[in-house]
């Protein structure tokens, strides 16, 4: 944003008529306004094309269209949800629908909170996500540290086995995983309806181990060796040296692990069937049909607030995780 201040008041400087090619690529549908900026990196459409009156017209048309379409497609449904909850059942059934609710009575949100017991579901979800986060950090960080810095015998094989789980899509081992939780092999424990059914599987995340290990690999050896000579134990080195310098990756892993648990549906649906233990997604889905429509929609709004808040707070880390997660890292 800040670096594009030069743009619209610049027409006078763009007079040199374009050379040969432009006539043929007049179809260019978008344009860049900040052409004058020399450091600006060049993309598909040349800055030059954009500085012509025609290029600018096309640019602003396309920009307007994109903003309108994106708003309509991605924001409008959310607007409809938030205001839909405020409408009375009669208003909801009304054809054509009103764009604004006739009265602003937020009582329906309180009603949804009460009737669906959302407080309980939200608390449950916080407990599951929080525990999964702690366990994930504890287990995956120490595993990655061991694999990266302590290099035990068979370490590569262990890492390979952990990475191989990335090849197995979660849905295809759903049934055996459910049976495992129902009766843990050897130990015979039944973890159904306990938070452990969420926490432990969440900690077995090959992708997090991989991300962490790669980050730890980049920490210079000398740093750790110096501490070792000073007599620091492996645990101490992890705590006092590795963790403090790894804050960015820990942030990414933290957010991903919390969001994963929060958004999951199928797994909690299976392993937490008890009405008292459900997560907010499963709870709403199982109770929705029995509620008046505006109460149901209000509960959807309430359920999406936490993830939206997380998103607003940690937008940067989420984006970082996304690109790290996909391919480049």
């Amino acid at each position: 944003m800040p670096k594009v201040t030069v743009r619209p008041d610049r027409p006078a400087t763009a007079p040199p008529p374009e050379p040969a090619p432009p006539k043929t690529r007049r179809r260019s549908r978008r344009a860049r306004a900040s052409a004058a900026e020399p450091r600006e990196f060049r993309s598909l459409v040349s800055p030059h094309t954009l500085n012509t009156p025609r290029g600018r017209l096309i640019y602003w048309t396309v920009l307007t269209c994109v903003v309108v379409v994106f708003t309509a497609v991605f924001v409008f449904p959310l607007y409809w949800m938030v205001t839909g909850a405020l409408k009375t059942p009669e208003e909801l059934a009304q054809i054509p629908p009103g764009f604004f609710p006739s009265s602003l009575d937020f009582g329906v949100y309180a009603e949804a909170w009460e009737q669906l017991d959302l407080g309980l579901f939200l608390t449950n979800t916080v407990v599951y996500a929080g525990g999964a986060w702690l366990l994930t950090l504890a287990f995956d960080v120490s595993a990655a540290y061991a694999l990266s810095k302590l290099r035990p015998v068979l370490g590569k094989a262990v890492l390979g086995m952990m990475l191989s789980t990335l090849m197995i899509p979660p849905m295809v081992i759903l049934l055996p995983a459910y049976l495992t939780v129902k009766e843990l092999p050897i130990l015979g424990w039944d973890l159904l309806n306990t938070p452990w059914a969420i926490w432990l599987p969440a900690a077995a995340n090959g992708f997090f181990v991989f991300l962490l290990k790669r980050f730890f690999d980049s920490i210079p050896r000398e740093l750790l060796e110096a501490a070792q000579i000073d007599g620091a134990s492996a645990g101490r080195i992890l705590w006092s040296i590795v963790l403090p310098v790894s804050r960015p990756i820990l942030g990414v892993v933290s957010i991903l692990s919390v969001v994963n648990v929060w958004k999951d549906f199928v797994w909690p649906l299976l392993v937490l069937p008890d009405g008292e233990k459900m997560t907010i997604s499963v709870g709403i889905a199982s109770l929705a049909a029995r509620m008046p429509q505006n109460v149901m929609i209000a509960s959807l709004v309430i359920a999406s607030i936490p993830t939206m808040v997380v998103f607003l707070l940690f937008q940067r880390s989420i984006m970082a995780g996304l690109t790290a997660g996909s391919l480049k890292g």
Partner: protein
Amino acid sequence: MSTTTAPASRPRGPGALRSGIRRNLTAYGFLCGALICFAFFSWYPMVQEVLLSFQRTNFVDEPTWVGWANFRTVAEDAAFADAWLNTIAFTGLALVFGYVVPFVAAIVLNELRHAKAYLRFVVYLPVMLPPAVAVLLFKWFYDPGAGLFNQILDLAHLPALSWLDSTDTALISLVIVSTWMNLGTGTLIYLAALQSIPGELYEAAELDGAGLFKRVWHVTIPQTKLILLVMLLLQIVATMQVFIEPYLLTGGGPENATLTVAYLMYQYAFNFGDFGGGGALGLMLMVVLMVFSAFYLRLSRDNQS
């Protein structure tokens, strides 16, 4: 992964063996938490998946080995072919929208100089909704009476559709929800990839007289080829597991029009109590998806190095 072991750097001598053992014990001490979790919840279920599909399990007696019987039962089910065809159709349609649209959106966003932050934020909004919320929201939009979509059609003087209630539109309705929910991820990933394309390439192409679409075809696509491929595989693997949409929206109906393999697997296990049949379906899905996953891992590793 250039972690070449350097044996020379390790101390040699009388104490070396003992310190080596100690180092390994410490390392496995750090590893044990993760190892236990992986063993119970990833590795064991992988093995168990195979066993499950060849056994009859009723949770009272010991499981008995039944060979291919589970596969035969499942394959003879009239719903079997429907489930596979629907899954393939769903994946195909989801690719057409969920693969092409984000790429085009990313190219357009990359050219824009204004409102970029807003657009990036907005396109990622649905991804942040819990999927169950997004799906239930669309269930309300699809309502044949006062649902948003039919109201919009009405405003445009178009005939109302029955969305989830008709065999013609049910599957595509699921694809729409699924695409809406996931579009943001792809868009942002492509956007990141597009920003790494050197501008000189476009310049050179332009000097050679390449028009806009030619530049996309000869510069943008080749430059992002690897990411496009990786995302293609990722998307296939993700969409073939589709479950939550049919579970919450249609229950597989009408007339099996939205029954997917994952949903049928769930039904076998939790509605019919036949974990062997469910396991057989899961194994079939696993074999298909592993082919794509293997390519995906391969490619993303090449990409990293």
